[in-house]
Structure formats: C-alpha cells, structure tokens
C-alpha cells in the first residue's frame, strides 16, 4: 500500500471520531428563531397580481415586443444622444468593465414580472428594459436567471451559485441598518457623489472610501459595504433584516451578517443607477468569474435600430 493511500486511510479513520449528534438545545434554538425569520423568496418583497392564463401570457409577450419596438423607434435618439457615454472614457477600477459593442444578434428581452419571479436564462445577451427606467444590455453564461421587477430594478443571479448583480434606480437609504429607525431623512442629494458619500457614512456598516470608476463608459463611484460579522446586538428592521436601501416599489436591499457588497453608482443620462454585487469570497472563484463576465458585458441604452429585442418566454 502506498504512503498516500495509508495517509488517506489514517485520515478517514481519524475523521470518523468525534460527535455525530447535534445537541438538542442547538436544534431548539434554531426552531425558536424560525418564526421570526421570514423566508427569502427573492431579494425583494413580492407583490401579487391576478394570475394570467396562457392566452394572457402570450398577449403579454406580444405586447412586450411591441413596446420594445416602440422604445427603439422613439427613445433611441434620446439615449444615444443625451445619455451616451463620454467619447474618452476615464480609467476604470476593478472589475475592469469595458464598454461592450452592440451584439451582432438582437438581445432577448428580459422577462418582466411585477411579482419579481426570475426566469432561467439561456446563455446569451439580454435587454432589461420596459418598464425598467434605464435600458441595460448584458450577456450571461449558462445557469443564470433574471427578471425586470419593475421600473426600478433588474435582478440577475446564478441559479446554483452565489453570483448576483442588481441594477437599481432611485434607492432611498435607511438611516441605520443596525439600529432600525426607518429611512434616512433627509435623503442624500441628487448626484452620484451625494449618494456615495451618504453610503460611506452609513452607521453600522463598514465602508470603503468611494473611488472614481467608469462602467460601460459611464462615470461614477464605487465602494464596498460590509455588515458586521454578527448582528446579535443590532436592532434589525421589522422583517429582521439589516437593510441598506429601499426602492419606490418597497423592494429592499439588505446584507447578511458578514456579507460584503460592492456597489457602483453611475450617472446614466441623468438617471442615478446603482449596481450592487455580493462580494465573492475565496471559495466562490467560479461564481466570481461568472459575475465578472456578466459585469464586463454591461451596456446601457437600447440596442441599435437594426436589432430590436425578441421577447423571452414566460416561465
């Protein structure tokens, strides 16, 4: 028997030693806490509309295509002329986003669901638009899902991994995630710097100094928000979350204990867009690579007139 096999045998034997029963008090502690912890179906609260039948879904898909075509025809000049990125983009910081040329094939229209139910995405390029206020195109590898959850949120995440990217418009900051006191009042001013500075000063959160960045050709600020490693001493929100901001729809963004999120705040044609990404850790190398791939494909604005988006299938 080789030394390697022998070491394996010894280690396996050694690992067999040790406790195999979870103490009852630990289980009791878990079950005591469960009623106070809401289940997370999405990272935003769901709100319900009457269920549509299949005809309704088809109609909605057709309507979505029509809306996108109208958007392309009527709004493209506004986004390309007014909101266009600077001709000489400033140097960018990690994760080295670069403006992505319009794809040769038309992007697929990302599914819109006001309930926020994400759908599985085939690998490819997608357009998150109507009713999202700032059309955004991106390319995903396999294993991702996403949804346009309203005018203020496009959410993407890996189905099995931890990678995620959220695009938010008009977030309102909470005053103190660790000592819940509702929304900050007054809210930060309208500029990218105003929001970045307010986030950097947010009590209870460890933050980095906002740094200048350029993402997809648009300038802005980047910083990292890190929650305390345990939240036992915090007075959390009524739903038990360490809440950072809230969108007009009621959607909230929160951090788990010890979680770090990278945040990019961009001025896209006068709209303040916030991209947030749960920061990957060492064990998530594959997820991190996928997120970087998606991030580097971000392109704001509608596709070129010759390539209107196709509707994605309903779930």
């Amino acid at each position, binding site marked *: 028997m080789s030394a390697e096999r022998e070491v394996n045998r010894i280690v396996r034997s050694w690992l067999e030693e040790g406790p195999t029963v979870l*103490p009852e008090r630990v289980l009791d502690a878990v*079950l005591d806490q*469960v009623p106070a912890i809401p*289940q997370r179906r999405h990272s935003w609260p769901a709100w319900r509309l009457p269920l549509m039948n299949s005809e309704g879904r088809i109609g909605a898909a057709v309507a979505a295509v029509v809306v996108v075509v109208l958007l392309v025809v009527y709004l493209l000049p506004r986004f390309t002329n007014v909101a266009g990125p600077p001709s000489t983009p400033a140097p960018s910081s990690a994760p080295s986003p670069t403006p992505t040329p319009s794809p040769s094939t038309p992007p697929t229209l990302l599914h819109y669901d006001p309930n926020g139910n994400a759908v599985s995405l085939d690998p490819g390029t997608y357009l998150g638009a109507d009713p999202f206020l700032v059309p955004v195109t991106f390319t995903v590898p396999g294993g991702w899902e996403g949804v346009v959850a309203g005018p203020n949120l496009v959410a993407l995440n890996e189905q*099995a991994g931890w990678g995620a990217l959220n695009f938010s418009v008009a977030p309102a900051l909470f005053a103190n995630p660790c000592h819940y006191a509702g929304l900050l009042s007054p809210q930060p001013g309208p500029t990218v710097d105003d929001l970045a500075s307010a986030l950097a000063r947010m009590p209870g959160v460890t933050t980095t100094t906002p740094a200048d960045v350029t993402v997809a050709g648009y300038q802005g600020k980047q910083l990292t928000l890190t929650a305390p490693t345990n939240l036992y001493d915090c007075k959390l929100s009524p739903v038990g979350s360490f809440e950072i901001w809230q969108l007009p729809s009621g959607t909230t963004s929160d951090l788990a204990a010890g979680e770090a999120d990278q945040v990019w705040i961009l001025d896209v044609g006068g709209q303040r867009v916030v991209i947030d990404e749960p920061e990957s850790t060492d*064990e998530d190398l594959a997820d991190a690579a996928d997120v970087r791939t998606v991030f580097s494909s971000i392109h704001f604005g509608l596709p070129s007139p010759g390539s209107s988006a196709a509707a994605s299938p309903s779930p």
Partner: protein
Amino acid sequence: MVRAQHGDEEAFASLAVAVGNRLHAVAHRILRDTDLAEDATQQALLTIWRDLPQLRDPARFDAWSYRLLVRACYAEGRRTRSWAPNLTILPVDQPDVSERLSTVVDRDQLERGFRHLSVEHRAVVVLHHYLDLPLEQVAEVLGVPIGTVRSRLFHAMRGLRAALEADARPALREVAQ
C-alpha cells in the same frame, strides 16, 4: 421539504431533525471546536430555512445544504482565526514512510496538522474523506472548479502527511519550513 419551502414550520422542524446531526458532524470535523461547530450548524440551519424557497431542485438539497454549512464554517473560522493559514509542505520526493504510518497513528499530530490547514482546505478533506463525496461533487458543493478541489486536497493531504511525520523526521520538517 416542499412544505417547508412553502413556509411550513413544522415541516422544517422535521427536516432540521433529519439533517441536523449530519451537518453538525461535518461542521465539527471542519472546525475542530464544539462551540464553533454548534454556531455554524445553527447558522446553516437558519439560512436553510430562510433560503429554502429559492432551492429550485429539491434533489439537490444535500449539496445545497452542505454548501450553506461550509459557508457558515468559513464565517466562524474567519471570526476566530484560530488556525494558522499556511501549510507546512512535505517535499514530494522524500522516501516512502508508509510502514511507519501504518503502525503509528498519533492523533495529536494529526489534530495539529489539521489545525494548520485553512478552513477551505479542511472542508475539501472532510467532504471527500468523511462524507465520501467524489471530487466532482465536492466542487459543486464548494462552488469552485474541480481543479481547485484537487489542488486543495493535494496540498491538504501533503500537510497532514507532513504533520504525521514531523516528530519522527525533524530534518524533513526543517527542510519543509
């Protein structure tokens, strides 16, 4: 599990009873500390409850729950930093010592060697050698490429082998350091 996914707390209690022992056993073997293992298991179970509705395929529950547990172990490990992050690597071209290893098993040496591994390396060892998961499944649980799993396992086992040999082979230890 489906009932628990839909918010049935009693169903989740049954699920927690069914998986709690296994998760705790894994956590203890990774963290080598009773309190930390209990905290990690508790955190993992609460995260399972919270995120269960997002599990699309119930057949993947085991891998998914191990992943949450390992993440909780990472968090506990980082919180305490009670291990040394660096491995003591044994040169691969040293003489075979299988004979000595087959007759002498020094638990203290193994324990010390294991504690010198990072939690990331320990997790690979435990998932593969305790749970008997194939490396492909370990990669899926940890969310890392299989090459990373192989590398971590290789270095971890070399570290453990070095620890087992350390006292008997002081010269080797000096060379390795």
